[in-house]
């Protein structure tokens, strides 16, 4: 039962999963491997990474050297299909264009969604990250704790393959033995950054990314993941054997035809399809969850994008995994007499508490790294190492002026030259051209270091989405209107990032470029880091949250949301690994309830 058209769908599905990215992929995988029959609906087209991925193509083979354009914002070779901050025919509304108040919404209309291009950074939330309000009085606690999610972090790491190490640092969890793959070896700039940072008291440890630095253990992992389920073990073992380890070349953002990194299309969907329990319909734009007279969801309505026809699909359970904002939009657009303000919205909290990640960057030039001999420093595409947040004590003592932390992603080295190479060097060369310019470019190539802060945003009442009263997309579906506001916790954090990165670069003997002391200017606009979560947050109290800890909506017992919409906080850790762990836990819960005939 693999890919089916809208017309050839069956009628007896246990679960409909809307979306095929990290949340949809994980939810469908878990359900199918344990025997549930799933229909997955994806708004975008079918996508085949094995044949569509530009692996070794170089910038000279792409229009404009492959630089980003509105049609391919992350560059020509980025894996994203029919996506970006603007999707033709699918508008959204911003209440302001101002730097500090705008929210830009990234979407990808393709099988696997944004997992095809993401950065693969896979960090566990720590114990503090689930109880932020208990710790500092701000935002919301999760209705679950680290100990509840830890077994699912283990499972996700064992399934998708994550490299990293266990260092025992504060609020930076260890993984049990066997869960992590060995981290890639550091490059020269990593050593230089680590030496300078440590002198400033800033830790530097191996990064965590969903890249196979060696083949997964196809004997042990399937047994640990599916105890007592020989069929699932066999399918997964065969699939793990067919994933090749990293060949230490080609950017992960293009996707990976040899399946050495995680994308839903190469890791979650193949075994789920092999189980025979999964049907996938692509080009199915879901716009409404339908409700029966008994208050249970009966299924969903969608537009078949290939024909423009509207169609209904039904199942015992509906799971929204369409991405935080798209799931909120779906609920808000599912109006009925019982739910005039949108489905599962008796709390009025659907669309509320949108969060992104605080982002701010600094780069600099380091004389120590000039004119080095030729080195192949592609590795696993960067992020051999990173810095977890390290100032917990100072922060809790109120010494920093902002309440939550950030981690540092950094890079450098002799990476593939492209349209940026040799550009903007006047500050170092005094404007050379000719033979001297060529010498200068050789000298400076590989001597730059880049720092990106990725920090926690605290949910607030002024960052939310709602349905715009007039604008509709090309299918006639009402669109979202975004409101956005940072607090000083975020802008001060961004200013701290700038100072810290400049300090590290100077400690390396280097020169930072363009350091911004005003946090409101240093912070990237909302949505630009593409870590948006919230909009249907989970909680312990139905009056102020949309779902319980199992991602089950308080109002509709057979309606679940397993994507980032349920996050009540957005730790500095990149959200994808947590999305998968939460989705796996929710899917286990759904399976249990299905077995008990409670759904």
């Amino acid at each position, binding site marked *: 039962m693999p890919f089916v058209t809208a017309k050839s769908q069956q009628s007896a599905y246990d679960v409909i999963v809307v979306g095929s990215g990290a949340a949809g992929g994980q939810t469908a995988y878990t359900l199918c491997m344990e025997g549930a029959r799933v229909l997955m609906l994806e708004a975008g087209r079918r996508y085949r990474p094995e*044949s569509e*991925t530009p692996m070794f*193509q*170089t910038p*000279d083979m792409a*229009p*404009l*050297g492959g*630089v*980003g*354009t509105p*049609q*391919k*914002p*992350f560059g*020509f*070779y980025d894996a994203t*299909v*029919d996506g*970006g*901050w603007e*999707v033709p025919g699918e508008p959204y509304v911003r209440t302001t*264009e101002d730097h500090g108040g705008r929210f830009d919404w990234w979407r990808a209309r393709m099988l696997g969604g944004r997992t095809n291009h993401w950065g693969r950074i896979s960090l566990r939330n720590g114990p503090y990250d689930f109880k932020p309000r208990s710790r500092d009085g701000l935002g919301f606690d999760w209705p679950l704790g680290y100990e509840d999610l830890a077994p699912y972090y283990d499972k996700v790491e064992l399934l998708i393959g994550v490299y990293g190490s266990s260092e025992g640092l504060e609020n930076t969890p260890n993984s049990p033995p066997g869960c992590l793959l060995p981290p890639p*070896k*550091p*490059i*020269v700039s*990593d050593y230089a950054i680590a030496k300078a940072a440590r002198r400033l008291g800033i830790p530097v440890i191996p990064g965590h990314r969903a890249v196979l630095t060696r083949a997964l253990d196809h004997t042990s992992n399937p047994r640990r993941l599916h105890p007592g389920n020989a069929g699932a073990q066999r399918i997964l073992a065969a699939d793990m054997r067919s994933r090749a380890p*990293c060949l230490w*070349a*080609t950017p992960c953002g293009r996707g990976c035809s040899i399946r050495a990194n995680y994308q839903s299309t190469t890791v979650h969907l193949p075994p789920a399809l092999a189980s025979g329990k999964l049907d996938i319909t692509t080009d199915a734009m879901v716009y409404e969850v339908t409700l029966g007279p008994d208050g249970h969801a009966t299924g969903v309505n969608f537009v078949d994008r290939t024909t423009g026809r509207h169609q209904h699909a039904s199942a015992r359970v509906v799971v929204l995994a369409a991405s935080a904002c798209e799931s909120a939009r779906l609920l808000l657009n599912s109006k009925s007499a019982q739910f005039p303000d949108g489905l599962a919205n008796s709390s009025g909290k659907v669309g509320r508490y949108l969060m992104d990640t605080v982002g701010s*960057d600094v780069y600099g030039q380091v004389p*120590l790294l000039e004119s080095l001999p*030729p*080195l*192949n*420093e592609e590795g*696993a595409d960067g992020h051999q190492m990173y810095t977890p947040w390290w100032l917990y004590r100072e922060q809790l003592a109120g010494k920093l002026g902002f309440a939550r932390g950030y981690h540092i992603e950094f890079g450098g080295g*002799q*990476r*593939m*030259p*492209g*349209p*940026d*190479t040799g*550009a903007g060097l006047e500050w170092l060369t*005094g*404007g050379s*051209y*000719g*033979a001297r*310019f*060529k010498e200068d*470019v*050789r000298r400076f190539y590989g001597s730059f270091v*880049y720092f990106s802060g990725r920090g926690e945003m605290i949910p607030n009442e002024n960052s939310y989405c709602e349905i715009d009263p007039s604008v509709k997309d090309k299918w006639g579906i009402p669109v979202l209107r975004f409101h956005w506001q940072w607090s000083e916790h975020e802008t001060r954090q961004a200013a701290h990032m700038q100072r810290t990165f400049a300090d590290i670069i100077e400690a390396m003997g280097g020169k930072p470029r363009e350091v911004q002391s005003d946090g409101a200017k240093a912070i*990237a*606009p909302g949505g*630009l880091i593409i870590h948006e979560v919230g909009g249907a947050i989970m909680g312990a109290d139905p009056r102020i949250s949309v779902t319980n800890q199992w991602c089950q909506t308080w109002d509709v017992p057979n309606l679940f949301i397993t994507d980032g919409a349920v996050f009540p906080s957005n730790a500095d850790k990149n959200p994808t690994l947590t999305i998968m762990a939460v989705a796996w836990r929710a899917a286990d819960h759904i399976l249990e309830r299905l077995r008990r005939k409670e759904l």
Partner: protein
Amino acid sequence: MDRRTTIKWMLAASAAWPAWQQAMAQAGHGTALLRPPAAPGYGTDPDLVTPHRRGEFWPLTLSAAQRRLAAVLSDLIIPADAHSPSASAVGVVDFIDEWVSAPYPTQQRDRPTVLEGLRWLDEEATRRFGKGFADLDAAGQAAICDTICDAARAAPERREAARFFALYRDLTAGAFYSSPAGRADLGYIGNVPLKSFEGAPPELLRRLNLS
């Protein structure tokens, strides 16, 4: 392209044309030339696997005279030397033509800067030496470039020309170092499959005092 560049692009794309360009367009100085023909671009789902050639997605628009001047300037910025060929020898002019002819906001913003800059070069050469820039000897060309090669040091009346030179140098370098010859010039040895990844060589770390 990394996210930093993307963010820069995002912010740049929303910026207006510089005032001098607007004034120039309003005064009727080749308005039609400043705007490239409308084209749909490569779309949101182009073929990523097949290599593309310049002009495949939108027509190249520079005139023969502009291309000749572009080649001369590119080769002043990146001349041939013992390590690698000159910019024009690896197709940089086609790249620049593709760039200024493209239907996207960044490139459309750069188009008048490049076109007006090339015209300025010829006007300046004629004013100072009585002939077009491409026909000057090396000393004459250098005499002009030296006044605009560093925006920080350029005279106020040459600021815009210096801004053009900086952009043109960036485009030339980006195109050159994206080419196989440019990659080789920098000693780039990545983008090949490896059995294992060994990271930094220990002897180099010792030399840099990083081990």
